[in-house]
């Protein structure tokens, strides 16, 4: 169908800033949905909104620009110093929790850097218009045009494209407005990011929501979910919306988010190797997220699946090396050590 195409970057996106052969590294900088939630009660899993850094195939890719992109920017500025830095931001959609950190992304204020922002035209406005809208004067003191870094917007058309050597696929997810998920085909395996998605069948099976829930409608919903399952199928790492537990979901039908049970089932069906539950509810404290993680693991176990399940956690770094997933913690002096089961507990 669609031929993979290089977005008409014409810029330094696609130029390699990292060695090509290193292992693929992921780091969670923001795992929360809706609104940042600082405080003691979220200190373990973190309170910043959606942002995941992926280093692979010579590229630094940033998935979403929620408030987690602020500390990421500080870290990149420290690491690169005066050396020019090229990063590619993939934006899933323009709800606040996915763009609100961008005005605080320090590398965009340094003229030697280039920042390429890729995404799709939204329900009401183009990508650039929406991102610069959040920096207009009623809201923010500095305009996007005043940022000295080289900032390029590329509104995507094709659902298949590449960034340098890296093949990327996008798919629409079920969420109000225009929202996509991204599938990165790295040389170490597949990383898929679906931060916001509501399970169709569950949405449609609810009576009294003004939607017809005929057998036909349910069948249709099932086929939509199947599309998502195909999109994430065989992912080595899947990062996916699991905002609610089953009970909470019943009072949040139609809000565009999934309950953890549906996400786990879908991931199992799709043959995912490692699932990260993502887009934690701002009202969930660490104990609640831990309990949801435990429940999700039990679900997978009782389904006879060998899929690993984790709640995404801010600051956590994951290495995908030839299809094998390892957790690491950076320690002083640039060294790192692999985390054991005890660190995870």
């Amino acid at each position: 169908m669609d031929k993979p195409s290089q977005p008409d970057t014409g810029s330094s996106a696609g130029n390699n800033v990292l060695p090509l052969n290193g292992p693929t590294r992921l780091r969670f900088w923001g795992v929360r949905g809706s609104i940042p939630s600082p405080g003691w009660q979220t200190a373990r899993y973190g309170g910043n909104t959606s942002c995941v850094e992926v280093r692979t195939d010579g590229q630094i890719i940033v998935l979403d620009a929620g408030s987690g992109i602020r500390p990421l920017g500080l870290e990149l500025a420290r690491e690169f110093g005066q050396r020019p830095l090229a990063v590619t931001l993939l934006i899933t959609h323009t709800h606040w929790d996915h763009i609100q950190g961008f005005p605080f992304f320090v590398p965009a204020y340094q003229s030697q850097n280039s920042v390429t922002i890729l995404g799709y035209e939204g329900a009401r406005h183009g990508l650039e218009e929406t991102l610069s809208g959040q920096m207009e004067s009623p809201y923010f003191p500095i305009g996007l045009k005043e940022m000295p870094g080289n900032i390029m917007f590329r509104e995507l058309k094709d659902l298949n494209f590449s960034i340098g050597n890296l093949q990327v696929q996008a798919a629409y997810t079920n969420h109000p407005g225009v929202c996509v998920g991204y599938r990165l085909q790295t040389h170490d395996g597949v990383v898929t990011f679906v931060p916001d998605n509501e399970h169709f069948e569950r949405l449609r099976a609810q009576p009294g929501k003004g939607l017809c829930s005929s057998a036909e409608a349910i069948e249709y919903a099932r086929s939509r979910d199947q599309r998502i399952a195909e999109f994430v199928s065989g992912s080595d790492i899947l990062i996916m919306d699991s905002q609610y537990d089953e009970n909470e979901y019943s009072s949040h039908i139609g809000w565009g988010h999934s309950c953890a049970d549906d996400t786990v089932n879908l991931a199992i069906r799709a043959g995912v190797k490692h699932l990260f539950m993502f887009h934690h509810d701002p009202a969930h404290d660490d104990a609640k997220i831990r309990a949801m993680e435990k429940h999700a693991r039990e679900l997978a176990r009782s389904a006879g699946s060998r899929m690993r399940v984790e709640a995404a956690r801010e600051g956590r770094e994951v290495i995908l090396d030839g299809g094998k997933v390892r957790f690491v913690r950076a320690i002083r002096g640039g060294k790192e050590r692999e985390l054991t089961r005890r660190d995870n507990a």
Partner: protein
Amino acid sequence: MSRVKTLVLVDEDLEQRSLVADWMTQEGWRVLVADDGERGLELAFQNRPELIVCDLLMPRCNGFQLCRMVRKNPNLCDFTRIIVTTGGGYPTDRANAIEAGADECLVKPLNRNHLIKCVRQLLGDSDTTRRMRVEKELPDLRDSLPPFPPVIPLEQAPFLRFWGVRGSIPTPGPSTLKYGGNTACIEVRADGQIIILDAGTGIAPLGALLNKEFESRPLCATILISHTHWDHIQGFPFFEPAYKPENLVRIIGFKGAQEGLRSTLSSQMESPYFPISMSELPGNIAIVEMRDLKFSIGAVRVEATYLNHPGLCIGYRLNTSAGSVAYLPDNEPYQRFKYHIGNPGQATTPEAIEYARRQDQRIVDFIQGVDVLVIDSQYDSIEYKSRIGWGHGCVDDVVALALSAKVKKLFLFHHDPRHDDAHIDSMVEWARSFTRTLGEDLEVAAAQEGLMVSLAPARAPV
């Protein structure tokens, strides 16, 4: 039937596409199909169809884009009807599709009778009906200023509580646990009123607590907005009491530099940014744009003044029966700003210097003798040197200002997102030693999330 009508049918989903194609062919239509948005547009431009049926989410040009392109084309804009179809059925998607130029939005899977009825209705319409319907669907917001009855017992001990103390952007994480990472929000309870200063992210946990406290009892709260930079309004969509119809939430502020308060607040809840729009909130929300700089909330007398900050920013002084509170969340002292060498707006003439001095004196008069002053002290004096003109104050200036206005208790506020707890501790230490050196007894502390300050000076702290 004069001539055969043409339908351009655009959908990636083969099954739905062939169903609709069959139905419409049986109805006597010429049906042209496309499986992506770009091809669909091409067919529309070439064939000038009476009707386009397209999905919202398609490769190479989504349904919203397609609607906009058709409405921009002079040949099609008043001629072609568009029915968009969506799998999700979200109300905002419907509203946005209609705003983008669709005539109708149907939820998939489509029903034959329903679709045909809808097509007949649309093609019988005159050209003006679409515009009329769009107008009808625009939100109807209430404007009147309601009375201010007391909502908490008058004998409840008055207090002030910090819910968000951070400036610029929320900063979760282990390094900000002591002072807190939420953006600007302060709760003041006095004289039977609940007054909330600004709606940064701190208003989200405040809302959760109010919901718990009031349960099903109706709640009235007044939110005073200093200005509409993100860190002062971003929590509002997450203020739970606004979603309960029995509550009354009044938002008071002043007209911004470019747009009215209502349009600025509601556009943060517009669909590119937020899934629920302001008009969908069931709570009774009244937005009041003030003109007078003096007004009352029940027995609390409020004074407002303009601060020195980009755009338009207001400071508030609440005079309650239990003492006074002044809130100046974003402010850069004028004289500092104007004396700075190399600053484009640098004051060089004696008149300009005198003007800057008078502006600062106005702030001194405004906060004169307050019991509690909460004020922007984002930077230390070294940091400030490289941030002159950014609209924020430094700790040294703030202490000097508080001393000259005979303030009793000073809270440093609008903490820089880069400042960790240890740095804020050191700024407080510096401010205290500065005060001691001058031989004054001003009480200084850093605003801290969760901290409650009693407003009855005679009584013990709550």
